[in-house]
C-alpha cells in the first residue's frame, strides 16, 4: 500500500491571469482509492485533468513512477478517464464504445472480443452489447463509460464527478459498485467529487481542497474527526465551530467556561478554534451541564432530530433521536474527547 506511484510536486495552473492551482504537493499510492474533494472552483477537476493530460501545468511536475510526464500527450499516458457526462460516442453501440481503445491499439480481433465481453460482463451489461448508448439509462451509460476506460487496463482510473448526473438511489448503488470494481481490478482510482458523503464512504484517502490549495489529506475518519481547520470542519458534515483559547495542554476555554480536552501541543493561551460535531452533544437537564440554553427549533430529519439551542453566546446545532419541546430550558453537555481543537485560520 505505501508504494508511492504518482507524485504531484508544486503543481500550479493559471487560466489567463487567474491562478486556479496554487502549488499542489501530493503523493498517490498504488492501489488506493483517492478522492479529491472540494467546492466547485477549488481546482480538483483541473488537478485531475492535468493527470489525464488534458491540461498542461503552468508550473511543477507530475511524476509517474518517478518519471515526469507533464509534457507527455494524453493519448500516450497509461491512465484512462471516466468523464462527468460519460462522453460516450453516440455513433457507436455499447460493444464498439468499449472496444474503441483496443481497436486504436490495433489488437487482435479475438482478443478484443474476449476482453470487451469480459468487461461488459463485469459491469453487468451482458445482453446490451448491440444496443445504442443513447437507449441506455444514466446508470447503464455510466457503466459503459467505466468499462470503456477499464478495458484498456490502465494503471490509474480517473473519475470526474461520474455520479453527479445520477439520482440519489442510483448514486448509492454506484458508490458500492465502484468500490467493488476498484477492489476487483486492483488499480489506483482518483475520484473527483464535491459530495462529502460520497468521498467519505468510498475513499481510502480524502484530499480536501479549497481555492487551489490542499487543506487536508487523510483517511475519511481523520478528515471527519480531526479536521485541521475551519474550512475542512465546515465542509465535511455539520459542525459547531467555536472560537476559543487554549489555556494550556488539555484545557480549552470558550463561552466563559474552561473545558477538559484531549488536545495538546498548542502554545499556552493560543487563539484556536474548536469543533464539536452535532451528534456528540447530549441535551440534559440545565443543572447537569456548564452551558445552558433554550431549544429554538426542532426539525425532524428521518433518523434524528436537528435541534438548534440558543445560548447567550451562540446557537448550537445538535443531532439527537430524542424530542425536545421548543422553548424548553436545556443543558448542553459533551465530553473531553468530543472537543476537537484546530489552529485558527488567518482568513475569514
Amino acid at each position, binding site marked *: 500500500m505505501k508504494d508511492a506511484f504518482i507524485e504531484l510536486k508544486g503543481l500550479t495552473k493559471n487560466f489567463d491571469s487567474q491562478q486556479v492551482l496554487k502549488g499542489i504537493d501530493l503523493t498517490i499510492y498504488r492501489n488506493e482509492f483517492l478522492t479529491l474533494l472540494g467546492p466547485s472552483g477549488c481546482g480538483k477537476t483541473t488537478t485531475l485533468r492535468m493527470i489525464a493530460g488534458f491540461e498542461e501545468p503552468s508550473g511543477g511536475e507530475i511524476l509517474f513512477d518517478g518519471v515526469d510526464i507533464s509534457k507527455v500527450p494524453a493519448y500516450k499516458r497509461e491512465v484512462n478517464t471516466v468523464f462527468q457526462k460519460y462522453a460516450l*460516442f453516440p455513433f457507436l453501440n455499447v460493444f464498439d464504445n468499449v472496444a474503441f*481503445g483496443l481497436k486504436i491499439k490495433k489488437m487482435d480481433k479475438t482478443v478484443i472480443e474476449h476482453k470487451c465481453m469480459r468487461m461488459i460482463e463485469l459491469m453487468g451489461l451482458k445482453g446490451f452489447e448491440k444496443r445504442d448508448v*443513447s437507449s441506455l439509462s444514466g446508470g447503464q451509460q455510466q457503466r459503459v463509460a467505466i468499462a470503456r476506460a477499464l478495458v484498456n487496463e490502465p494503471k490509474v482510473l480517473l473519475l470526474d464527478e461520474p455520479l453527479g448526473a445520477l439520482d440519489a438511489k442510483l448514486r448509492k448503488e454506484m458508490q458500492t459498485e465502484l468500490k467493488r470494481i476498484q477492489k476487483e481490478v486492483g488499480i489506483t482510482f482518483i475520484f473527483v467529487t464535491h459530495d462529502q458523503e460520497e468521498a467519505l464512504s468510498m475513499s481510502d484517502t480524502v484530499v480536501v481542497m479549497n481555492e487551489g490549495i490542499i487543506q487536508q489529506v487523510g483517511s475519511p475518519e481523520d478528515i471527519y474527526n480531526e479536521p485541521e481547520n475551519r474550512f475542512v470542519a465546515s465542509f465535511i458534515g455539520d459542525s459547531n465551530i467555536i472560537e476559543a483559547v487554549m489555556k494550556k495542554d488539555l484545557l480549552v476555554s470558550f463561552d466563559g467556561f474552561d473545558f477538559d480536552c484531549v488536545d495538546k501541543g498548542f502554545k499556552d493561551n493560543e487563539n484556536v478554534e474548536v469543533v464539536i460535531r452535532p451528534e456528540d452533544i447530549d441535551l440534559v437537564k440545565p443543572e447537569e451541564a456548564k452551558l445552558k440554553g433554550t431549544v429554538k427549533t426542532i426539525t425532524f430529519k428521518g433518523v434524528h432530530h436537528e435541534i438548534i439551542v440558543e445560548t447567550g453566546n451562540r446557537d448550537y446545532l445538535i443531532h439527537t433521536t430524542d424530542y425536545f419541546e421548543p422553548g424548553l430550558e436545556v443543558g448542553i453537555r459533551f465530553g473531553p474527547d468530543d472537543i476537537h481543537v484546530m489552529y485558527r485560520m488567518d482568513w475569514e
Partner: protein
Amino acid sequence: MKHFTRLVRPYIVWMVLIVVLPLLLIVLYSFTTGGNELVNIRFTLDNFKKIGEPIYFDVFKKSMLLGIVSVLICLVFGYTLAYMITKYSEKAQNFLILLVTIPMWINTLLRTYAWISILSDNGLLNRLLVLLGLEPATMMYTDAAVMLGLVSDMLPFMVIPIHTSIRKIDKSLIEASHDLGAGNFQTFWQVIFKMSIPGVINGVMMTFLLSISTFVIPKLLGGGQYMLIGNLIETQFISVGNWNFGSAISILLTLLIVIGISLMKKFDREEKEENG
C-alpha cells in the same frame, strides 16, 4: 389563434399565384404541343421522348458529371476550410464565417463577371504571369474556368453546415478519444469526421442543387457552346421558343432533384436512427 391564422390567407393566395400556378403550367406545357396558345393544345409524350435523343441526353450526362465533380471538389476544400475555422476562438470563428458568407451577399452575375476580369486573356492573372516572365495562358471558356466559378460560388453552402456540425461536437468526446489512446489523426477520422456526417450531407445536398441547375456560370465562363441542363432550358425558352420541350426538361430536372434530396434525407435519417 384562429384570429391569426386568417392573416396567412393573403400569403397563401400569393403563393398559389406565383409558385403553384406557374409550376402547374410547366407541367401542362410539358405534356402538350402547340406552343403558347392554350386554345388548341394536344396532349403528347413527345417532349419527354425528345430528351432521350443523344444530343440532349449528353447534356444531361455532362451536367450530372460536372455537378458530381464540382460537389466533390467543393467537399474537399469546404471540409478543410470548415475544420480549420473550428480551430480558432469562438470570436474569430464568427468573423471567419462572416468572411465566408460575404460573397453570398453579391449577385452571382457580378461575381462571375469578376472572374472574367481575372481569367480573361488580358485579365489580372495573365498580366501577373507576364510580369513574372511566364507565358500567358487561355483560361476562359475551359472546363477549369467553369469548375472554378462553380466551386467558388458553392463553397459557402458547403462550409457553413459542416462548420456548424463540427462546432457542435462535445469537446469531451475528443478528449475521450485522446484518453483512449487515439492521436490527432485517428481522433479526426474516428470521431470528428463521423460526428460531422450530417453537416456533410446537408452541404452536399445544397451544393448539388446549385451546381445542377446553374446556367449563368457556364454561360459566362464556359462560352456559348457550353451546354448544361440550365442553359438548355434557357435556350429552349428564350432563343428556340419551344416552351413545351423546355418545360419537359425542367420537370425532369425537378424530378431528379427531388429524388436526390429524398435519397439523401433517407440516408441521413438512417444515420440518425442508427445513432438514436
